[in-house]
């Protein structure tokens, strides 16, 4: 294996996202960011493949309107060899089609690769479209929803978890694999690894460096609004002297709601 490319998104940490209750708007600008969980699994898998096969370069690619340096440093600390970022203010409003386009051109510029690993979806936008779009525009095989990978000769064998079956598929490299969170438990880099990472290279490109015409990045969809859902719950606390009393009150409430019993 010569080179594995891992696509990394800098995602909004949705568990720390706050909502303005008066407008139901999300306070995205103030939310912390991190490597999208699924992509971290993809990176971990790349590192495990390298540990097994040796002599492999792991490159991460990130497309972002921000610098995303801390995210890239974390990836390098985990075990990536080199981090590429396409960082450009023009990328602020791109959709999945634009992201896939930039990734495509960046990967072509990086050069030959055997395997592209992506997260099945992203932590924040949760669309799951970028990986298949990327495979399509690179015209390579794709294996999505993968929970197990093995490399055998010039092929990758992967287990895909579908709705009602586990499917084992095989594709010749170069190929793209998108992974689920079940595939592994990503490592937490040690202090030593973090220190070593500071010497590793981060390559920054702009959209112009990739010769992408501006119109290829035009959004193909329009987001009209993004609002937190209304929560209209009763929020009744049921209390009592002991479990039996509490349970009695709850059972009564549920029967009164007309949702249990006849």
């Amino acid at each position: 294996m010569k080179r594995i490319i891992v696509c990394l998104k800098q995602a909004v940490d949705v568990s720390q996202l706050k909502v303005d209750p008066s407008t139901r708007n999300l306070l995205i600008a103030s939310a912390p960011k991190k490597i999208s969980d699924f992509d971290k699994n993809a990176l971990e898998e790349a590192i495990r493949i390298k540990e097994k096969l040796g002599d492999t370069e792991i490159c991460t690619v990130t497309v972002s309107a921000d610098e995303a340096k801390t995210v890239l440093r974390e990836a390098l600390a985990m075990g990536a060899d080199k981090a590429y970022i396409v960082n450009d203010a023009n990328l602020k409003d791109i959709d999945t089609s634009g992201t896939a386009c930039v990734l495509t051109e960046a990967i072509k510029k990086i050069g030959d690769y055997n395997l592209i690993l992506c997260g099945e979806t992203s932590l924040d936008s949760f669309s799951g479209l970028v990986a298949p779009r990327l495979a399509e525009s690179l015209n390579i095989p794709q294996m999505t929803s993968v929970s197990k990978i093995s490399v055998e000769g010039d092929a990758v064998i992967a287990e895909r978890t579908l709705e009602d079956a586990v499917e084992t598929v095989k594709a010749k490299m170069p190929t793209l694999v998108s992974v689920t969170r079940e595939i592994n438990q990503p490592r937490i880099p040690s202090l030593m690894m973090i220190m070593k990472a500071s010497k590793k290279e981060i390559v920054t490109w702009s959209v112009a460096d990739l010769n992408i015409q501006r119109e290829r990045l035009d959004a193909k969809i329009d987001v009209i609004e993004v609002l937190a859902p209304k929560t209209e719950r009763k929020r009744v606390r049921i209390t009592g002297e002991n479990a039996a009393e509490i349970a009695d009150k709850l059972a009564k409430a549920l029967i009164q709601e007309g949702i249990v019993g006849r």
Partner: protein
Amino acid sequence: MSGSKGVWVFSEKYDLALEILGKAKELADGLQTELVAVLIGSNMQEKASELIRYGADRIYLIDNAELGRFQAEAYLGVLHNLALNYKPEIMLIGSTKNGKPLAARLATRLNVGCVPDCAKLDIDDRKRLIGERITYGGNATARVTFRMKPLIVTVPARAFEKPEPKDRNGQLIRLNVKIEEPKTEVIATKPLETSNVRIEEAEIIISCGRGLGKKEDKTLLDEVAMVLCGQVGCSRPLAEDRKWFSEWVGLSGHKVRPKLYIACGISGVIQHVAGIRDSKVIVAINKDEQAPIFEVADYGIVGNLYEILPALKEALKRQLQ
């Protein structure tokens, strides 16, 4: 694409195609255009007639022994060719593990947008299609529209009701297409062990989270579920981290909308809440009174599930008699 018309439906999961047809009919009527179903597979004649009864005005049938089971490139090639030749306005594709990547690749080939997992779809007063999807890990709902045709949307299972079949007329068009070479080879398929009843269909669900000390203690939930004729679910950590159970309720697992959802020892991270938001009544039992699950619950009990559940079983038995 100029002159685009028609609302198209495709899913390699036939039941999902039927579900989508109901909504698609409404959209097609709103746009005063025809409803088309694309059917790909082997020996599909009967299903083609059935799709007409379920609302399709026209069926494009690609009946080929080689297409008996889903193949990414072959199915993609068929849809791409059909879209180029017949120029649909809207394409609704079932959002399955195979269907979503299919839609994404089709959108890439056609150089158009794609909006995944729309559980709500409407035509607004400007005749635009508006899709709604959950985003930011369940923190928000995005309303989205499109800039170019065809509009490609993926639709999750159980978002829309299967329509009532009626005797009606439709046009069946059989097509032969060149089958695109596969890029991957399926070497084995193993059916997943799933419970007989799908949790999405359960009217009452009682779920456990990290508050459950050991796997065997699930019997506490089983017993309450038995009294309520409900099903037992769990949160992601029990399925993924502890590997106790195979499937979980939540945004990345099963999205459910029962009449009653009882969350036991579940803290209520946003991804879990997004999977249960449409439940009619939510009950939370948790030792930690600060747990976010209480924010989205109709009834909250600060307490130990090991004490509350056995008491609840007895109370329900008594009161339901």
